[in-house]
């Protein structure tokens, strides 16, 4: 995994819950492409299409609150998303993301400097997030070395596999 990640962003509000990210009726799906097809269908039926050209979600507080379903993480990861930046995350979503290797970053200010479709740059080691179109940089929490290693290997699931 790169220390610097770039991509176009999609911006969402507070409390994007797991029913929005993957509605309950789709929990019977198991194949990655099927789960990717319903990502964010509670709010945006065009998300899978948008995810082809946008690779970073930027959101407000409590992203991924609600159900324990790791379908929510799988849906975003399988859509090709590189990272989710939010002001805060639902507890189980955060844990699921670390398990499955979807990069999640906490930043209080990123939400305030981006609009849909703008280009973002995440510098993981420095804890900086930049709007490349407006050339504005804000802080994020720094990913620890341990966390970086987990992400680098594809999540806790891969580490358990090797052990």
């Amino acid at each position, binding site marked *: 995994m790169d220390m610097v990640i770039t991509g176009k962003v999609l911006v969402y509000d507070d*409390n994007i819950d797991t*029913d929005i990210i993957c509605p309950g009726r789709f929990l*019977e799906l198991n194949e990655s492409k099927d789960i990717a097809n319903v990502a964010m269908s509670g709010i945006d039926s065009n998300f899978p299409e948008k995810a082809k050209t946008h690779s970073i979600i930027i959101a407000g507080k409590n992203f991924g609150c609600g159900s324990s379903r790791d379908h929510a993480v799988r849906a975003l990861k399988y859509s090709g998303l590189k990272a989710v930046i939010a002001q805060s995350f639902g507890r189980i979503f955060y844990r699921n993301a670390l398990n499955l290797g979807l990069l999640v970053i906490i930043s209080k200010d990123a939400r305030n400097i981006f609009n849909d479709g703008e280009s973002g740059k995440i510098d993981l080691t420095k804890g900086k997030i930049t709007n490349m179109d407006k050339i504005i940089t804000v802080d994020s929490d720094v990913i620890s070395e341990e966390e970086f290693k987990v992400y680098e290997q594809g999540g806790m699931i891969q580490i358990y596999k090797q052990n």
Partner: protein
Amino acid sequence: MPMHAIHKILAEKSGKQEVKAGEIVNAKVDIAGINDIYLTVLISYDDMGGGKVWDPEKIVFFFDHNAPSPTIKGASNQKVMSEFAREQGIKKIFKINEGICHSVLSESGLVKPGDIIIITDSHTTTLGAFGAFATGVGSTDLAVIMMTGELWFRVPEVINVKLEGTLKDGVMAKDIALHMLGELGTEFATYKVIEYSDSVVEKLSIDERMVLCNMSVEMGAKSTYIRPNSKTIEYVKSRSHAPFIVHETDPDFIYDKEYIFNLDNLLPQVSIPDSVDNARNIEEVEGISIDQVFIGSCTGGKLTDLEAAANILKGKKIAESVRLVVTPSSKEVLTKAIERGYYQTFLDAGAAITTPGCGACFGGHSGLIAAGEKCATTSNRNFPGRMGSIEAGVYLVSPITAAYTAITGKLNNPQYK
């Protein structure tokens, strides 16, 4: 160092003398539960290498979300799980006739004070009502427990919520939870344990305590705790002969935060779309037309909930404009509700009654709502699309408010007046 009872559970299960908030521990799990919608547990288990499970006696399957299965895919997932359980010698499968995991687990004597209970359902916080450390996890964490019998936890801080005063008629535990959400929001307890204490909690029935603990996950809580009293001990002993330890919180333990709610003047609450913390006094929303009333789920489908609704609906008919769906939380609730005549009351009133399970609450089946419709529900979430169309509105209410609303077709609960 003074410890909370929850910390003593985590210390004991991780082989330590003491633990403190913020520390990471690897703790042994007493029960690991898998719901039927998460075949991803077995997929993750295979991804990690598969093989024999750690202890087939401690793994439980719940066929509760698709009970009975509304789709071929759902049936197929249950079939794969049944085959897996058979191959692995897992005997504890609660099939499609049994009901919702949190109800059936406590009813069957598998939850005791001091236990660590982990299920792939976020509302597992419910079981803190029995003095257990209980929390929901995703599929991969559950797969790790299946393989090793253990899971890592960050030892949580504990928030003490003191509930004082006397509840007005027509006000239930659900109203307390919605009021707390309205006051404190959806994040105040993230990563933390909520303990409920004081006079109101002491008086509440086991069912009503479960409601507080159930709704705590909507406040972000990792788990909950109610100090087991004689009611709890009696309930557990009537269902389990296994020994258990009630850990006591040290008197000089320091809580992360303390909130005191005096509930003397609390009115029935309604959380309006699309967030659980959009709580309003009933007076502010009285008269809003409702298309469907749902009485069910792990939050609002227990015996006390059905009893509260049946007492109001007895001899009454629901409004012409409304439909009423009743889903008991378990087979035991169903059986007792029949014995006590609640089923006849619901049927006479015009209700549709479904198999025990999670059905409409999670937007799966058996009572979904159309675009433009409004549903008043005793369940736990009102996110957009939670119970069907994303253009529908979900109003969270208590069973008493649900019953009055079914009669008039409009949000109301005159009992507190």
